[in-house]
């Protein structure tokens, strides 16, 4: 409201007699809904799809560039209003903390599932024929070793902040591997790119939906499938003494918003809650941007044109 007034003042000093146009449609408030943009393509697409749909419904939308985790400070105070992708795998703690404070609301699943698991490029299958079964890994530990980790293999894990229990997994499954943490996912994929160009051995933590498993040919390692009991009950699985003797859980990607969203823009709130898109659809959109070099805006406009009936269904009648 303050900035609104201020802009008005500022501009009316400079130019006289310009009329403020009437709002395009009946919406609850003309204040802009601030949607956050992060630094990965999938999120840019989902945020823009939602933002453009809201604009078409007559809402005032503002895109704000914000850090994935720092944005929670803004969501809590109501400076920011909507974050379209909070991954259960990386943002759950921050989201839970926000929801517990009563100032952030979990707006439900986006329909996308975050997959994360150990992954290797396809050319490794020649060097280690037993893959993708996890049991093949120990025989090939030497193939995956580097001077610092030898004779153990080297597994490149995600940033420490992602958690993931890889040290525990290695121990419980008796893998001859050392877990090395990348600090950011940019570093993670930089290593993958570098190894892929040289056809060098690498096994690392990859997540989807992401451009990497589309751009690079490879496979997920097949661990015993995750069940909640595996993480809590040592007796579960192949190792009777230790928990974590299974793969990683998959989790939904949530939408999250400022808890005042519901009362200030009820129509937008229900549209946001209805937003749904799945992994395959998103993967295709992401690869158009990251691999074919199209612009995010163009891809989103195209999607909106082709799926009009679908997004119109999200809007309140």
């Amino acid at each position, binding site marked *: 409201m303050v900035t609104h007034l201020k802009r008005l003042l500022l501009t009316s000093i400079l130019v006289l007699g310009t009329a403020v146009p009437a709002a395009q449609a009946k919406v609850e408030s003309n204040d802009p809904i601030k949607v956050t943009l992060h630094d990965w393509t999938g999120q840019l697409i989902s945020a823009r799809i939602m933002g453009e749909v809201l604009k078409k419904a007559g809402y*005032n939308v503002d895109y704000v560039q914000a850090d994935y985790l720092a944005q929670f400070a803004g969501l809590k105070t109501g400076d920011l209003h909507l974050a379209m992708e909070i991954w259960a795998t990386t943002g759950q703690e*921050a989201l839970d903390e926000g929801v517990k404070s009563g100032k952030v609301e979990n707006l439900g699943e986006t329909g996308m599932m975050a997959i994360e698991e150990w992954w290797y490029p396809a050319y490794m299958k020649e060097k280690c024929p037993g893959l993708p079964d996890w049991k093949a890994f120990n025989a090939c530990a030497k193939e995956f070793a580097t001077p610092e980790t030898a004779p153990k293999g080297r597994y490149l894990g995600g940033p420490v902040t992602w958690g993931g229990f890889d040290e525990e997994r290695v121990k419980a499954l008796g893998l001859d591997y050392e877990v090395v943490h990348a600090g950011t996912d940019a570093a993670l994929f930089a290593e993958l790119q570098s190894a892929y160009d040289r056809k060098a051995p690498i096994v690392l933590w990859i997540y989807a939906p992401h451009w990497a498993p589309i751009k690079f040919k490879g496979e997920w390692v097949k661990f015993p499938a995750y069940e909640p009991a595996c993480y809590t009950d040592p007796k579960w699985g192949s190792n009777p003494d230790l928990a974590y003797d299974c793969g990683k859980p998959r989790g939904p990607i949530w939408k999250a918003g400022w808890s005042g969203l519901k009362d200030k823009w009820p129509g937008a709130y229900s549209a946001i809650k209805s937003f749904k898109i799945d992994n395959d659809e998103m993967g295709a959109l992401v690869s158009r941007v990251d691999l074919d070099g199209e612009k995010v805006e163009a891809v989103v406009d195209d999607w909106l044109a082709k799926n009009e009936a679908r997004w119109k269904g999200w809007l309140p009648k």
Partner: protein
Amino acid sequence: MTIDALEARRPPASRSAASALLWPAVLAATAILSLAPGSFLPDWAVRLPAGWKLPIAGYISVFMAWLVDQASFGLFTFRELTRGVAWLLDWPLGLAKAMLVSGFAIGQGSQAVPIAPPLPWYAVFMLGVALGWRLGGRPLALLVAGGLAYLLIFGQWASAMTTLASVLVAAPLGAAGGLLLGILCYRSPRFERALSPLLDLAQTVPVFAYLVPILFLFGFGPVSAMIATILYALPPMVRVAVVAFRAVPEEIVVLGRMTGCTRHQFTWKMLVPSARAGLMVGVNQVIMLTLNMVIIASMIGAGGLGYDVLTALRRLDIGRGLEAGLAITVLAILLDRLAQAMARQSERGRVHRKEGAGRLTGRRFWLLVLALAAALWAAAFLAPPLAVFPAEWQLSTASYWEAMVRWINVNFFDALDAFKSFVLLNLLVPVRRFMLGLPWLWVVVVVMLAGWRLGGLRLTVRVALATLFIALVGLWEPAMLTLYLCGVSVLVAAAIGIPIGIACATHRRLWKVVEIVIDTLQTLPSFVYLIPIVMLFRVGDFTAMIAIVLYAVAPAIRYTAHGVQGTAPELIEAGIANGCTRGQLLSRIRLPLAAPQILLGLNQTIMLALSMLVITALVGTRDLGQEVYIALTKADVGRGIVAGLCVAAIAIIADRLIGAGAQRLKNRLGLA
């Protein structure tokens, strides 16, 4: 290590037998303890018992929650106050943005209706070149034109203007705030003593540590980014201002008193104008540090070039990231050179300038330029397509950079990897193991001994308290990892930087080249070169070390060059007269006399190395930087601040010990 090095430089004759034995004894004890820590000391002296740890992080979290949610001055809450400040600061920022980027509009968000365009690129270009010409003649005008042309041709213009808008607001505010605090410090030594530790903290606590509370208090967006930037960029201005005021000749101060100036008149009519040249050095620092913060500011909604760098690197688009990063460097260099030119002009004085201005006097020149800018702006208003730099004139070298990194990667990886493994296995891993094995109590004792030998009782107490703080908050291990990584990196930086600095001092042309390289290294966001380094060396301590060395080597070079160059010519002549060879001149005269200056450079190197910690956390180190980063991701305010304070503690210990050492050295050499 630095202390040992310092001790080694002392002429042996001045030591008494007992103190000569002190450091060898300490060294021997350290060796014994690190080989067999368990056998000599009780357990509690080796690893701090869990029960001794102070829950300071918890207290800080509670306090911050209270400050943000409940603190009140009766009429209004603390948060309303800070939000008011943010609202005020948003005005100049909004104006600058409207002028350069978005244009003026009614309404906001997607419903904003544009009423006037921003200044078109050719108007900004013209203004920049005119300013350059006015301040620095044709060379500076050409430099400005070249820099702005880079921004245009490589498609960085729009983002660069966003960044420029926030720098144009943040830098003057930082400079003015620093100036005012500097005046207060000059007037009241007590105020200075109270402010000094706060300045230390503002410079050394990583921004990530207090980012979350700032976001709560000032709101999420460009204003918070600006406030964080000002907090970071202001301390050097205060320091430089105080030094500049102290350097004002006594005669001027006395004259002020004799002519019956009021305090206000004295400050603004005599003190500040006479110190102007010195103050401009501070302004320059503010500009450089402001541009250093561009990346972090973009994470909290400032947008601009920083955001482009982050997004490009996230896609592993190294070329694009480099181009956007270089645009930041270009902005930094242009603003820096303009400020330097302004400083030079103010040194020459106003009267002089008026006489030498030639055909156009100052006021008329600017009237003409501004009228022209207004006309160009009006042209953009009437014909909007003109304001857009044609896309077909733009180019990008992104694909070449990418091809180059890939080529190096495919062809030289094995050689690079062998080198890395060698350094890692023979230097990094042993040092790391040694540092982690040291009993904490022993480290406290050694630090105290160093404090006592170099500066006496007061220094001993200070450094002891700082070390104990690190131990008692339970961050000993990350702190030792920090010390190991930064220590090795600083040694490597010194081993590279000091010889280069010496070479630069005697070869002017080499210095010209080196200066450009280190300016670039200091302003290019480190993230830009971090990712290619990861591709060539994988994640880990070695990569972190290279990144730290690249960033921190600059002051080692700069101060050494400055110090060696500054040797009094009489002494050199005396050396030549005595038949010194070139090598002897260097080792017997130039280097010993430059030693205090070199030590200060080392001190700055350490500070910069510590400030890189948060960045190296991004390639997987496990030190205090990572601790700060983890705290940020878990929204744990207290934990982040405590880890940040530990970084500050290390910085302050190093700073005080080296400062005391440099002072002693100066006294002995008769320089002080």
